[in-house]
């Protein structure tokens, strides 16, 4: 973590050949307090984080979780109260925003309304005193990547939201920054366009090979695009991992609830057999969950299971894994799946997604008594 020896200054124009051994972005013990009515309110509490070169990294969390503050500290718009920020191994903690080799795509795009597309995109290169011919070449290249060729003379008010979005992206990417920061850039777009831009962003990132740091509260967006996700809550990182890890193995109750839908049951461990804990909930009802050896019988644990892993039966099954009985209270048809809400003897309602792959009819209807089963590996103990 103490690789703060200033690295040689790399000219920003050679983005491709700029792989170093350092993480693209690194936070070491970073805290950020805001003063509100004379009182220090923490926005980010003790953040240690390393984002790798070329990574598509998402900061995901509800509003007020500290994700935007974290991003603004990378950009240089906020100074940490304590700790250090490194870019490519260089300590940039006290460096002004205009002297940092990172660029940002703002939520509101923040295009210069008095400048046209060409002038907007050239702005950064002009400040860096890049030659006219070189600017023309690079701007032309980036406009082609974001499919805006031919729009050079347009002003912001003459463009759609999606086009403005691309200008904002081009304006940042044309500088070949060490990292591109995106602050909920798709928030203002409608659903279709948003999904289109998600794929587009991913393609562009692959094409330019720049580290992307993506701030969002939309878990779907983060899961779709990211190499890794940091789920933040109340100024802390709750979990850091690949989308699959975070979805399949939520580390905390918060993550389990924030990412997708989770069914969570708390019960004491009845016995442990070969790495599997069995939680007996009734004569024919039990939950089977893989646990580390450190979990003894008798300890109460929280178990999470995703709705799409559960099978719904009308008759009592002879399954080896988890079995729960309950009554269907809600059936919602979603096209690709049917969602059931089942009130169980554990006291909590379970949500079950049943793919409409074969059956034209619903498995069960409201008020019907059903059995829920799922394989042991699909349950997951939280915080163990």
């Amino acid at each position, binding site marked *: 973590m103490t690789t703060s020896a200033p690295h040689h200054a790399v000219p920003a124009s050679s983005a491709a050949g700029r792989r170093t051994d350092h993480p693209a972005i690194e936070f070491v013990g970073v805290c950020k307090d805001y003063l509100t009515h004379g009182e220090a309110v923490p926005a980010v509490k003790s953040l240690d984080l390393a984002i790798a070169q070329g990574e598509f990294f998402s900061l995901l969390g509800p509003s007020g979780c500290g994700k935007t503050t974290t991003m603004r500290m990378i950009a240089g718009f906020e100074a940490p109260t304590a700790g250090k920020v490194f870019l490519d191994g260089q300590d940039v903690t006290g460096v002004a925003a205009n002297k940092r080799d990172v660029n940002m795509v703002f939520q509101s795009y923040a295009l210069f309304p*008095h400048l046209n597309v060409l002038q907007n995109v050239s702005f*950064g290169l002009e400040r860096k005193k890049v030659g006219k011919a070189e600017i023309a070449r690079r701007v032309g290249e980036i406009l082609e990547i974001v499919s805006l060729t031919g729009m050079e003379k347009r002003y912001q008010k003459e463009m759609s939201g999606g086009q403005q979005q691309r200008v904002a992206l081009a304006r940042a990417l044309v500088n070949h920054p060490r990292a591109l920061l995106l602050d909920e850039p798709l928030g203002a777009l409608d659903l279709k366009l948003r999904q289109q831009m998600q794929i587009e962003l991913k393609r562009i990132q692959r094409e330019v090979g720049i580290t992307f740091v993506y701030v969002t509260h939309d878990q779907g967006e983060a899961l779709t695009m990211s190499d890794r996700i940091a789920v933040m809550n109340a100024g802390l990182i709750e979990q850091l991992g690949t989308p699959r890890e975070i979805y399949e193995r939520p580390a905390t109750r918060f993550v389990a609830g924030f990412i997708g839908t989770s069914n969570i049951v708390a019960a004491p461990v009845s016995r442990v057999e070969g790495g599997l804990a069995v939680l007996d909930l009734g004569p024919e009802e039990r939950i089977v969950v893989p646990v580390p050896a450190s979990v003894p019988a008798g300890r109460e644990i929280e178990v999470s299971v995703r709705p799409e892993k559960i099978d719904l039966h009308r008759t009592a099954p002879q399954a080896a894994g988890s079995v729960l009985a309950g009554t269907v209270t809600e059936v919602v048809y979603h096209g690709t799946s049917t969602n059931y809400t089942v009130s169980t003897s554990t006291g909590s309602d379970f949500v079950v997604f049943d793919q409409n792959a074969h059956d034209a009819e619903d498995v069960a209807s409201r008020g019907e008594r059903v059995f829920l089963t799922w394989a042991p590996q699909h349950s997951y103990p939280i915080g163990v």
Partner: protein
Amino acid sequence: MNRVKRTLAPYLLVLPGGLWLLLFFVVPMVTMLSLSLQQGDIINGYRFTGHWQNYVDAITDYRVQMIRSLVYGLVTTVALIVMSFPIAYWIAFHGGKRKSTYLFLLLLPFFVSFVLRTISWRQILTDDGMLLHPLKEAGLVSSGFHILGTSYAVIFGLIYNFLPFMVLPIYVALERIDPRVVEAARDLYAAPMTAFRRVVFPLALPGVFAGVLMTFVPASSDYVNSAVLGSSETTMIGQVVQAQALANSNYPMASALSFFLMAVLLSGILLYARALGTEDVMNAAAR
């Protein structure tokens, strides 16, 4: 019936204002235009003869005052831009929750009548007034030094009296700038001054444009400041019009002078709008 009402509604709404303009703007303008081409004297009355000589006389006799007025107006306007921008900028970006208080403080002196305020400055600036008396006592300025009656005093009065008309439009323009746009400039390697020069100032230009219109025209045609703070060396065209109309009852000359002044100011503004590029100004304003 309903459709008729709906088509008529906009016209009905514009009717009171339209009538007002017709009565108190168009009619007097036409009357004045006709007056400026009349001949005669106050005892025998004036008669319309299409007498263009009035304009020739106005220009040849009062060229000095005309040029002086435009120079005063120009100096005042430039000084106002330089002074108002920092004030408006500070209130817009650093005023915090007290923005309206600061704006109110700025306007507070203007609750007192225009003439009264100017007369109080006369008291302050006079040779033995509260400003010069102590300075002369202390030997910091020579006893023969005076401010009142000079061009400086008149321009000072004009600047003082028109300050809010420049600050307010610039403030409104600055206030509308999204702070993220300024951050974007910083993010794109612009140092604070560069961000100001390349982003903040261009975006505030519509406000400057409005401020110039609201100060240059009335400052150039003002007659109070020169009358109260100036001397015969600082006579402005407004004073000449006033004297011709009220003292000499030479209505044709007063009208011809007014019309000529209006023509000069209008063409000045058109040139100015042309030079600044109204297109770009409007683009920025309409974002």
